[in-house]
Each structure stands twice: as structure tokens, then as C-alpha cells.
């Protein structure tokens, strides 16, 4: 999708009118006009990015800071009993448009919204296997991490080199799901 055709690009950069609540050089937050609850905020990067993984480090960090600041603001003004921060990456996760959005949703008793996460008992072997695999992957992203059981198979230099390689996410496929 062309960035100029993207409604959220236009909202984030002010090409289209919106009920803006917050803006800095990287991010814009507006009131959702079809909200889950009053004061439901949509927080968007100004740059057209489809999913979280594509955001530069500074923007990903800024999303954290803005999530905190906007939560404070909503708690102070609306005095809700709770608040959810929700991100959907990919149509399968509930993403509706190919522009990254972080939802900030004030919550009230009996509001009919559900962000409960049903937890299950896991098979220990499955979790152990995944944990070992993830630790190896994590070292490619965070070479300074230390895991006691892990043998030092690669040098830090090797890991830094591997980290530069493109991450194996099929962005085309994820983006196509919207079409």
C-alpha cells in the first residue's frame, strides 16, 4: 500500500483532521472515533510501518514512554478502574490496517471488553526445548546476554555480525493479509 493512500499516515501527519491528544517528532496519538470505551486512544508512528518489528529502536522505546505518559493522563482525567495497552501485529492477531497502532483503552467495571488471557498448563519438555532455542536466538539480538547453561560457541564479534543480517520475518506475507 502506498503511504499516501494510508489513512493512518494522513491522520498521523495531520493531512487529515483528527482529535489529536499527543504529538512528538516520531508519534501521534488521537482519539479513536469508533472506540471500545470513551477516551480510547490510537497511538501511531508518523512513518508508515506495518508492524512493531519494523520500528526503529528510538521509536519502539518512545512508544513505551508515550504509553506511560498517556496512561497517566487517562488515569488522572477519567479515573478508570483499569487500562489496557494492546498491539496487534498481523491480521491474524486482529490488526485491521497495515499501519502500526498501539491502543490505549481505559477500562471500567462491566464495560463488556475482554483482555483476559486464558492460561494453560504447558508440557515441560516443550517449554524447555523452546527456551533453549530462544536463548540461542536472543544471543543474536542481544550478544551481551549470559545464560549459565549455554556454552560459548560463538564470539561476541560473530554474534554482532549475525545481528546485522536481516531478520527472517516475511513482511510481504504479513502485509498481503490486508489486501
Amino acid at each position, binding site marked *: 500500500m502506498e503511504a499516501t493512500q494510508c489513512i493512518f499516515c494522513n491522520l498521523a501527519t495531520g493531512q487529515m483532521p483528527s*482529535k489529536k*491528544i*499527543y504529538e512528538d517528532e516520531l508519534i501521534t496519538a488521537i*482519539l479513536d472515533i469508533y*472506540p*471500545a470505551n*470513551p477516551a480510547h486512544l490510537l497511538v501511531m508512528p508518523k512513518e508508515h510501518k506495518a508492524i*512493531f*518489528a519494523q*520500528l526503529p*529502536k528510538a521509536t*519502539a522505546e*518512545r512508544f*513505551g*514512554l508515550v*504509553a*506511560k505518559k498517556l*496512561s497517566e*493522563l487517562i488515569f488522572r*482525567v477519567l479515573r*478508570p*478502574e*483499569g*487500562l*489496557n*495497552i*494492546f*498491539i*496487534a501485529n*498481523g*491480521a*491474524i*492477531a*486482529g490488526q485491521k490496517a497495515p499501519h502500526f497502532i498501539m491502543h490505549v*483503552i481505559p*477500562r*471500567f*467495571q462491566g*464495560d463488556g471488553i*475482554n*483482555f483476559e*488471557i*486464558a*492460561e*494453560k*498448563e*504447558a508440557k515441560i519438555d516443550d517449554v524447555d526445548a*523452546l*527456551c533453549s*532455542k*530462544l536463548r540461542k536466538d*536472543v544471543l*543474536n*539480538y*542481544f550478544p551481551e546476554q549470559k*545464560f549459565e547453561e549455554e556454552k560459548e560457541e560463538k564470539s561476541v564479534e560473530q554474534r554482532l555480525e549475525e545481528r546485522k543480517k536481516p*531478520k*527472517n*520475518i516475511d513482511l510481504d506475507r*504479513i502485509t498481503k493479509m490486508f489486501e
Partner: protein
Amino acid sequence: MTCLICSLIEKKQKKIYEDDEIIAFLNPTPAVHGHTLVAPKRHLQIITQLEDKTVEKMFFVSQQLSSLLYDAVGAEGTNIIVQNGVVAGQKHAHFLINIIPRSKDDGMSFEWAQKQIPEDNMNKIQEALQATEAKEEKKEAVAEEKKKEEPKGADDYLIKQLRRLP
């Protein structure tokens, strides 16, 4: 009362990331395979209690971990969910970022019904949020100014005294 999350952090159980402030580990009772929790090491309950730099780091680490989970469990999407307060679904009094890999037919859904809010009310909400935001910014600016005016702290004083030493 002991906190389950604090005890998991202490045991470093199924840890996949750790630094001086935060830790990430596989949820022992996952919604799906690969359900990861990112937590501050300090026992803090909701997002507003976290320091700015901690929350920034937590989001960056969540981003990196959610990226590698695509490959690790063959996910087709991910959800990142923060629950602040029991009505928001929070189960432990310890702040968490949930990273949930998603795939077809996993039986999960985080959808919501859209509410109709009259334009008037929308405008009132916007005004109230903007007014409070402006007030907070002013307060911060005043605090900054005060900091500049006030005599420097004891540390600065000591450093100056030390510099005077021959």
C-alpha cells in the same frame, strides 16, 4: 504476601533476557506456545509506576523478542498486551508485558465492540485530556526552572570544593 512473578524472577526460571532492570521469561502457564512475559525486576504494579527509561527499555526488548518469536514458534502474528488493574485482566500485582505469538485457529480473539459516542462528548474528552496535558507540561517546565534557580545539590557542591583543592 509473596508475589509469584517476583519468585519466578528470583529463580530466573525459563529466562530468555535479563539486564539490570528487567527480565523476560517464558510464561509457565502460557496461553499458547511461546507466550513470553517481560517484567521489571522491581515489584511495581502498573505502568505509571515505572521509570521512563525502564518502560522505554521494556518496549524495545518486547519488540525484539516478539520479532524472534515469529521464527521460533512459526507465528503468523503477535499480540502485545498490558493489563493495568484487575478489571483490565491483570492477575498478578506485578507489571508485565505479555507477548503472545498468534497463529490460525489458536482459538484466541481480542476483539471489541465499537461504541457510538456523540460528537459533543468526544470533544469534551479531547478538551479535558488536552487541558490536563497542558497543565502537566507547565508543571514540569516550572519544576525545571526551579531546579536551575535552586542552589546546586550537595554532590555538585562537593565537586566544586574538591576542584578548589590545590
